């Protein structure tokens, strides 16, 4: 675990991406240099009737202290967050959790993103490219119900990765569930591969199954209700396939394919 900090940061930039999706950039966060793809922060909603902090994956950081999260209005906490005015103060606890392990350089990277699972995977792709990975070795599958669930398209495209948008209603990209083109890709390729997935439970289950079925290793980023985020409450546990419990916040949120009972 990285020793986290607890910073009062200012909401520097606020963008309403689409419908209920927002990008918030906070500044200054003193530990940006320790942040890695997969890490998350716990964000406080002070003076509200929301009791706990809310966890959000880090979507990007800049070296001068900017930290971005991308979120969707889900319930009351995120609705109140969306109302926060630019210039407002928010306390961030982080960076928390484990980060993704980067693939080997000879591996094809299969990213399977869905909904609010998108931000940490975008961060992963950005960092990989910064670390010298060939963008063309990254296959970014991005699924949603409709075109409205596919955000920041141009940001992904600009990375030069292979971008495969998929929507259930066919309103953008391929029609259907994201797992079908992923499976086709795996079947058609004979390179070494590695899967990274974050999204709704159904997607994680499918990614896990595909990984096991085709012996493709990889990592999944999980969600759970997180009272603390630092490993002290034991509230966020999930069952592992070996029968023990793992805390999503600090034993995860990144787990290996095949590790967790999904």
């Amino acid at each position, binding site marked *: *675990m990285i020793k986290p900090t*607890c910073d009062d940061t200012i909401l520097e930039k606020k963008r309403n991406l689409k419908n209920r999706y927002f990008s918030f950039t906070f500044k200054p966060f003193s530990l940006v240099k320790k942040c890695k793809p997969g890490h998350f922060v716990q964000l406080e909603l002070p003076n509200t009737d929301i009791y706990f902090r809310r966890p959000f994956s880090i979507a990007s950081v800049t070296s001068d202290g900017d930290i971005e999260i991308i979120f969707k209005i889900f319930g009351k906490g995120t609705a109140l967050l969306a109302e926060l005015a630019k210039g407002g103060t928010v306390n961030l606890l982080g960076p928390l959790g484990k980060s993704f392990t980067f693939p080997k350089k000879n591996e094809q990277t299969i990213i399977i993103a869905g909904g609010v699972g998108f931000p940490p995977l975008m961060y992963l792709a950005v960092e990989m490219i910064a670390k010298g990975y060939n963008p063309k070795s990254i296959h970014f599958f991005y699924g949603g119900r409709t075109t409205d669930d596919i955000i920041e398209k141009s940001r992904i495209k600009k990375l030069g990765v292979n971008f495969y948008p998929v929507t259930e209603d066919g309103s953008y990209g391929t029609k259907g569930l994201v797992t079908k083109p992923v499976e086709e890709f795996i079947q058609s390729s004979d390179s070494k591969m590695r899967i990274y997935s974050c999204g709704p439970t159904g997607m994680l289950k499918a990614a896990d199954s595909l990984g096991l079925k085709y012996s493709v290793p990889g990592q999944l980023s999980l969600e759970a209700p997180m009272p603390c985020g630092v490993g*002290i409450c*034991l*509230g966020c*546990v*999930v069952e592992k396939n070996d029968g023990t419990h793992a805390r999503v916040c600090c034993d995860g949120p990144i787990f290996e394919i095949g590790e967790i009972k999904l």
Partner: protein
Amino acid sequence: MKPDLKVNIAGVEFANPLMTASGCCGYGEELADIFPLAKLGALVTKSISLNPRLGHPPPRTAEVRSGMLNAIGLANVGIEKFISDKIPFLDKQPTKIIVNVAGSKLAEYVEVCSKLNDFESVSMIELNISCPNVDEGGMEFGSDPVMTEKSLKAVKKVFDRPIIAKLSPNVTSIVEIAKAAEQGGADAFSVINSLVGMAVDAESWHTKITNNKGGLTGPAIKPVALQMVHAVYSHSSLPIIGIGGIQSTTDVIEFLLCGATAVQIGTALFKDPMLFIKIEKELLQYMKRKKCNTIYDLIGKVRKY
């Protein structure tokens, strides 16, 4: 002059009256990564039982108004692993260690406490008597004065150092239970453990945690805890550790005024794991402002309006 934060509970001296609450800081490892444990008067461990316990399956926490509900189910590594893996780490910590002990039979409490007796770094035991007694039909040890007295007597025989009885709020008269514990040889009280509560999802019609019921903690229970601390303080001269919903320096002071000698903080650590640093600083400022030289200038000083 800097006010003196030291307090003494049953002969054990603590650098300050601020402690972690059991089950809210594991065995201290994670907190030690976050802030210097020397800031703590004492670290109170998660409840240790004879055998390891996985606890309840998830989901085991739910957020409620001004607090939370948990059904962790006393998940812990068990006494053997605690001794082999955790005590060596705790030994080295620059704070006092209180081990919280739980059981489902009296014999289990006795066995765990007797094993802990060998470890000098364990300053005190806090006895979690809010556990269902499987021998007696699942009634909690701490809900019956006779069982309470018997439990205390039994563990006092095998543990040389002071024992704190951690009292349940889910009783008709906490004073009656406190008296029974005192009779059994308790050296201090922790007041209170969590209330029993339930949460339901109106959409899915499911309970929000695995169990039908769980422990309610956080600011929601503070008024109940303050009243119980005050009631026990008014009927016993044993020192009290106040617990329940503390999340600010003002809360700490309220508990001291109601009769607590020290306090434990649980749920609030989940919102702010560095909370102790802030409270220690603000408590000193408050004491200076109010011209209190020691914590004892505050203990029990509440006045009826």
